[in-house]
Structures are given as C-alpha cells and as structure tokens.
C-alpha cells in the first residue's frame, strides 16, 4: 500500500528521524496559515502517489505567507499523471548543501530486507543503479537483530559520506530499519537525506510502502488507504477483496489464479484482442463473488465483452456458472460473456450454463477467440455503461 510523503515522515518522526516541521493543507488559506506558523520561506509539495511531481510543477516555493497561498492555489487541483492533487505538504525551506540516498528494500535474492546507501542522492535510485551501480553500497538486514548501528555507520562510511554525516546518518538509517520492520514496510526510502548548510542531517523527502498482507495487523496504516491509482475501480476492487488491475483494452478478463489470468490476457492479445483488465477472483470463490466480479468488470466503460476463464481447484465450476447466470439480469444488454470452465465441478457448471442458454469456450484459446470475435462484431456504439457506472 502506498502512503503519502507526510505520512511516511510521520512514521519516521516516531522513530526519532529528524524531518522538517510542517503540516498538510487542503486549501490555499490553510497553506498560508501554516507558512505563517512555521516561518517563511516555505516549500509547497503536492501529496500524490506518483513520482516525478517536481518536474510536473508539483513542488513550488513561497517567500511570504501570501506567496505560499498563491503557490498552494496553483498546486492544489493540479493533475499529475492522471491524479488530482488534493493535499499539499507545507514545510520550511531548507538550505541543502549535499543530498544522499538511504533506503531499505525487500530483496528476493537474500530473502529479506537490504539497506542501501548512496552519496548520489536526490535523483531516482533506479537511475543510479542502472548507470553507476558502484555508487550504491548494500547490506542485507538480519531479521533477528535488524540493522545494527555499526552496520549502518559502516554503510555510510563505505558510501563515502562525510565524517560528520557517518554518525548521525548511521543513526537515521538504523532507525529507518526499526521503522521498516515495525511498520511491515516493503520499501522505505529517504531521498534525499539532506545535509544542510547549517550542518543538520534530516529526511527531506520520504517514501514508504506498507505490505498489503500485513494490513490486518497494521490497523492504523490500513486506515490511511486512499484511491491509489488514477482509476477508482482499482481502489474499490481492493476494498471488496478483488485483485483488479485496469489495462487499456476493451475485453474484460476474469479468472482464478494470477498466472492463469496473466496467461488469459496473453491469449486474448494473441487472438487479436486487447485486455481491459486483470481480475483474479482467487481460490474458492462462490457464485456471489463471481456475480459481483462480472458486474464490476462491466462497470469499466471501455469493456465491450467479458471472458471468464476458471480452472477448478478450490474454485468450483458450478458456483462460477451460477454467478454468471445471476449476473445476467444486471449486465448491460448485449454484453457478450464467454465462459470457460474446467476442473472441479466444470461439468455441472457447463450444464447450468447450457440450461440458461449461455455459451462457453471449449478451452482458453477457444474462449479467447470467441470473446474477441464477439467484441469485434459488436457495433462500436454498443451500450457501454450500466446504470451504476455513473459514480
């Protein structure tokens, strides 16, 4: 789960990591009041879940409270990569002398978190990793002890940071490791870690991702969830326990199991279609889940046909068939649905579909070809939205 910079800094603050004092504003007037309170000049920073906000104009400055209000007025409501800015973080401007990178990421190879430090801060660490990997030093974190303070200092020293930063930066990185583990993060970055002209070391920007699987025990952070993508359907799907990803085609896809759904997307593409989404209804889905999934996919105005591809392990074919039949009444008129069932309960499921006058594909390829044909045959002006699609 993504969280905002101000929330990430809130977490850092709880672990003793220095951050600029600041507050969040949702109106220009609030930004002006915050600027007055914490002292000008200030920086106005758009709080959106995408990178590259600086280039998009999402970071502006105010030398006076009135300028802060104007700057916030420009940033609030701004569209950054499809997301509307609804909040800005207002913080005192600092005079940055040097910028470093410190971060902790989950590493598949070492099967745990790895701490990383680079003297090349303030730029995208992926670029540093791609172009000058020698500028990044790494240390796997032992889950029993976390990152020990000496290991953190060692990383600072090996990354070539100034002596004055090694100690304080090391303490910050060790604290970041504690925050990472206690918060069930899957990524925690301070970029830049700033050395100011007056010798302070602080987190000037921060990014934290929380592991979705840990949200049941990270209740406070779970409460911070907001629509995280440009597409509100993705957020709603998450709340309803559906694994949904919006894509840019017009063939809706529903399946069980991530790999099978991915393969179904590939198969539809191969049949000449363009998938509109990825939707995995997971294991053991019942009829009601299937019904909801169909109606959910149909709410995407781009969808002009739906392919249901279910292989039964925990998921039973007759439950899926019942769900498809139940959905018929609420689906947009003329919306083609092609179902393909196999495995546990597939025979029973096919019989139910036949009784209801619905068709199915004999296998995944057949299903993909049938749905692509149906979508291609349908007039472009086919009814697109259900009555519920308006919100």
């Amino acid at each position, binding site marked *: 789960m993504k969280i905002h910079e101000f929330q990430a800094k809130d977490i850092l603050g709880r672990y003793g990591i220095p951050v600029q004092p600041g507050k969040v504003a949702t109106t220009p007037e609030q930004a002006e009041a915050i600027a007055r309170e914490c002292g000008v000049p200030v920086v106005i920073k758009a709080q959106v879940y995408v990178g590259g906000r600086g280039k998009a104009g999402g970071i502006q400055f105010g030398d006076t409270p009135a300028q802060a209000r104007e700057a916030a007025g420009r940033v609030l409501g701004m569209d950054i990569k499809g997301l509307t800015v609804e909040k800005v973080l207002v913080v005192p401007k600092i005079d940055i002398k040097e910028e470093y990178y410190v971060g902790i990421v989950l590493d598949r190879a070492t099967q745990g978190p790895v701490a990383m430090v680079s003297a090349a801060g303030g730029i995208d660490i992926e670029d540093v990793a*791609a172009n000058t990997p020698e500028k990044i030093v790494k240390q796997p974190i032992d889950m029993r002890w976390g990152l020990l303070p000496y290991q953190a200092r060692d990383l600072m020293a090996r990354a070539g940071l100034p002596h004055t930063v090694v100690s304080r930066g090391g303490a910050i990185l060790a604290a970041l490791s504690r925050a990472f583990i206690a918060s069930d993060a899957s990524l925690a970055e301070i970029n830049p870690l700033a050395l100011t002209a007056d010798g302070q070391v602080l987190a000037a920007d921060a990014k934290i991702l929380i592991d979705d699987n840990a949200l049941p025990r990270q209740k406070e952070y779970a409460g911070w969830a907001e629509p995280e993508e440009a597409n509100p359907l993705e957020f709603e799907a998450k709340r309803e326990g559906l694994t949904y990803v919006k894509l840019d085609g017009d063939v809706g896809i529903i399946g069980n*199991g991530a790999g099978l759904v991915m393969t179904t997307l590939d198969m539809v593409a191969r049949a000449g279609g363009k998938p509109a989404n990825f939707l995995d209804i997971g294991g053991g889905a019942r009829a009601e889940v299937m019904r909801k999934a169909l109606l959910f996919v149909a709410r995407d105005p781009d969808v002009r046909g739906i392919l249901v591809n279910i292989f039964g392990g925990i998921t039973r074919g007759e439950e899926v068939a019942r769900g498809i039949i139940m959905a018929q009444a609420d689906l947009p008129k003329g919306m083609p649905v092609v179902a393909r069932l196999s495995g546990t309960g597939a025979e029973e499921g096919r019989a139910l579909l036949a009784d209801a006058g619905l068709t199915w594909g004999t296998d995944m390829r057949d299903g993909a070809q049938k749905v692509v044909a149906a979508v291609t045959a349908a007039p472009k002006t086919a009814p697109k939205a259900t009555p519920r699609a308006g919100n």
Partner: protein
Amino acid sequence: MSILFNRDSRVIVQGITGSEGSYHTPRMIDSGTRIVGGVTPGKGGQRFAARIGDRALGEVPVFDTVAEARERTGADVACIFVPPAGAADAIMEAAAAGIGVVVCITENIPVLDMARAAAFLKEHPARLIGPNCPGLATPGAGKVGIMPYHTFKEGRVGFASRSGTLAYEVVALLTEAGIGQSTCIGVGGDPIIGTPFVECLRLFERDPETDAVVICGEIGGSDEEDAAAYAKTMRKPVVGFISGRTAPAGKRMGHAGAIVSGNTGTAQGKVEALLAAGVPVADTIFDIPEMTKQALAKVGAR
C-alpha cells in the same frame, strides 16, 4: 523415485481442522497420500474423520504441536493450511520439529514473516515449498496440497510452476497428450519462496525417474533467469513458458511477486534468458506438449 514426495512419505496436515485443511485432507487421502495425522493447537487428542460426501476415508489423530505429531507418527512431510497470521510460525515449527519437506499452501502471508522464516530455515534445514502455492503431486503416489489430482498421469516429465491454476492447465494438456509427470511442483507466487525453479531443476536433474522438465514462469524477480543459467549445465532438457507478456510495468499482477520493476522481471527478459540457455520457450501453453515431446525425443527417453 520422484522428488520430494513418494508412496513412502508420511504426511501431517497443519491446520487440519480448519476449513481449508478439513476440505483438502480427505482429497489428499483419496489421491493415495498417506496422511498420518494433523495439528491444530488446542485440539490435540481429537480425531479427524476424513470424508468426501458420504464416503468415509478413515480417521487420523490430531495433535497440539508438530513435535508431538512427528514423534508419534514419524511424519516426514507437512502440509500447511494455517491462516496467514500464523503460517510463517507453522513453517518454523515444522522445520524445528525435523520435518524434511514443508509444503505451505497459505496465501497472503506478511512478507517480513516470510523473511524471518527464510532466515530460520537456514539454521533448521527443511525443504520449503511455497508459500502461496498449490503444493506438489507425484502421480501414482498422491498429492500434498490442493492440485486437481485426477488430471495428472504417471510419467517421466518433471513440472514446476509459479502459478497454481496455470499449472493445472498445463498438466492437463500434458496428460491429454499422453505425457505423464514424475512430480509436479507449485513453487508459489510470493517474492520469498522456499524452492525457486533452480532448486526444482537441481532435484529433477538428480532424479532417475525424470527425463525432462517443464517450467512455467511469470513476470517479476529473476528466478527464471537463474533457472536458465542452471539449465545450460543440465543433462536433461528443459521446456519453458512465461506468462504476463502483455502485463504493463509497475503493476502487480495478482501474485505478490508478479511485478515488473524498472527493467527487472520482464517477460521478454526471461524468454530471452531461457532461449539463450538453449531452453525452448512455448508461445502459448498449447505448444508445451509438442515441445515436451520433442525434448523427450532428443534424449531418447522412453
């Protein structure tokens, strides 16, 4: 000999009285698996009566701890259906009790719990399969997990897949084409798993009852690239398939581990790595049986 699991394996089920455990245990027994007991803390002393519909499949004892279950039953394989919050603990409990092969079906385990379990396994060696996987099956001997066993067929092709349902599809296609399997492994869809492809390949390479291996990978991570590097050194032929060719970068495609980040984990990179290692890669799953037949013909397999 198949790998990891055979007719002599003695299996316990952790979480046997839960909804998943109680549904799948009778089905494992029905496939021929010797289930010797179960573990549910607090329900030790009870007996689990296995049945499918009105078909009774015997009773097994339930224990409070894995240590006790192992001592009393001589179990060497554990199958875990424990809910996510306790699943990593269940893995560590099984490893500490000396269970050799631990199969964890559970999905949605917090990743740092798995990081802890992975570190624990370095000091308490056990072969972990999964988590977030359908388990494994050795046709003719039975299954450990939730795979649809009736579509499997005894034979000499090893199989491993990151996705469960995709594995079922491909195994069914192999069976339809008359190609039987030695052992089928669902390695799991999480970023931290116990037995990545390269480990499966090592086991199959050593297995005298396996002639060729099929691996079904997907976007995310570099397990397929690692497998490709090893496949190059193998005596036995490997056939590959990669799903997620149409998946956009930066989007997590269902599995926690299925995400292209930057330039890592792309389908294209994996396909290229496999091809460069001499591993043919199927365009669609429907091409896998024919390619497997060709691979078998090349080694002159029976």
